[in-house]
């Protein structure tokens, strides 16, 4: 399959969470690292996020959640992607996420979780190392 020369990322905020600073900072950082970032805005259901990811044919779905709804929304996004032919898309999460929730989230298929204080550099490097570019 032909590859494109850049990484395409969907940055999405699932649920009713209105904290968007982190998501916007991450979006800008990825843009500055040469990636193409699709930002879908606040209050998206997992279904809407997955549909956007598939129509936009992204390599990465980056979920940001500070409201505490991550235990439902993150695994649900992974599950829907798998059902709809997007199993090869890298799913990442970030935001205010308690340490003890992280193992189960990773178990569900979220590749990595980035909590407050994470450097932009670490996020960019992780994506470059793990995105399966199509």
């Amino acid at each position, binding site marked *: *399959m*032909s590859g*494109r020369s850049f990484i395409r990322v969907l940055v999405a905020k699932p649920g009713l969470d209105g904290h968007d600073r982190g998501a916007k900072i991450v979006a800008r950082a990825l*843009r500055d690292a040469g*990636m193409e970032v699709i930002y879908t805005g606040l209050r998206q259901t997992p279904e*809407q996020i997955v549909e956007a990811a598939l129509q*936009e044919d992204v390599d990465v779905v980056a979920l940001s959640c500070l409201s505490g709804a991550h235990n439902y929304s993150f695994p649900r996004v992974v599950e829907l992607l798998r059902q709809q032919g997007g199993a090869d898309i890298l799913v990442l999460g970030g935001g205010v996420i308690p340490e003890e929730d992280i193992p189960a989230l990773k178990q569900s298929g979220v590749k990595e979780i980035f909590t407050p204080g994470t450097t932009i550099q670490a996020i960019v490097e992780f994506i470059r190392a793990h995105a399966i570019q199509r």
Partner: protein
Amino acid sequence: MLYKDDLVQSFLRGDMRALARAVSMVEAGDIQAEQFLAAVAREGKRARLIGITGPPGAGKSTLTAKLAESLLDRGERVALLLTDPSSPFTGGAILGDRIRMHAIAGRSGLYIRSLGSRGSLGGLSRAVPPIVQLLENFGFDAIILETVGTGQAETDVVETVDSVVVVTVPGLGDDVQAMKAGIIEIADVFVVNKADREGAERTARQLEEALKLGPKAVPVLATIATTGVGIAAVVSSLDAHYQTMLADGELAKRRDRRLRKALHAYAASIVSVRLAEWVEEQLTGHWADIDSGRIDIYTCGRRLAEKFQKRGVTSNVRED
């Protein structure tokens, strides 16, 4: 991952996931993309292409969503191509137009794709014409293209669509003289959006005055895209414009021009790659003469071009 033959089959079956993969392939622009386009080509019905342009923040995305909704409501299949500028330095981009699509996202018969301006000088991505062809072959009735009204976007959009909607807002267009040169000429429909704000009527009247001097009758319509006020009038103006173009042959003319331009550009891109390689070959061993100024690059360039053309003819003859 879907491989190419499966991809053709899925595409022809109407699978939007296959369409999304195909758009990426075409955007990457390799030889496989050319083969894919050939495999899914079909005769017959074409889509109606509508371009929306105007300054950032004018409400183009909001308006695009409302127009798409009206077309979907009457049973049309609609594709949206939403373009935002890419950084000329890193190639990166934030494509945020989807934020305005929440009300329609998820409707059946709708495909939404965000595109960076990658590789063009502030205009439309070079991949737009082949992507439009894919969308037409997929069976969409209407394709709406949103562009940012900066750089080359206006010239590009005119050469890419059937009807151009130029969006402006009160205040911004207060002084019509100050509007970007050329923007008045390209509009088939003018929209003064944010009509809930002061000065909308004045802006509309000024535009009407300015447009009277032009060669064609262009409607100026006031809208409030956030609430949907005035959208029905935009849709009927676009319908009327389309019917007029169908009747007077303008539609065919615009399509011909568009196809010719894309065809020329593609052929030229292939030749220019070959030419560049060949010129480099020819230059080996002679660079010192150019570097010292003994041979000037323009004389040399003409000689090489003429030699390349002759070589082109003989190699064709040999192939026959």
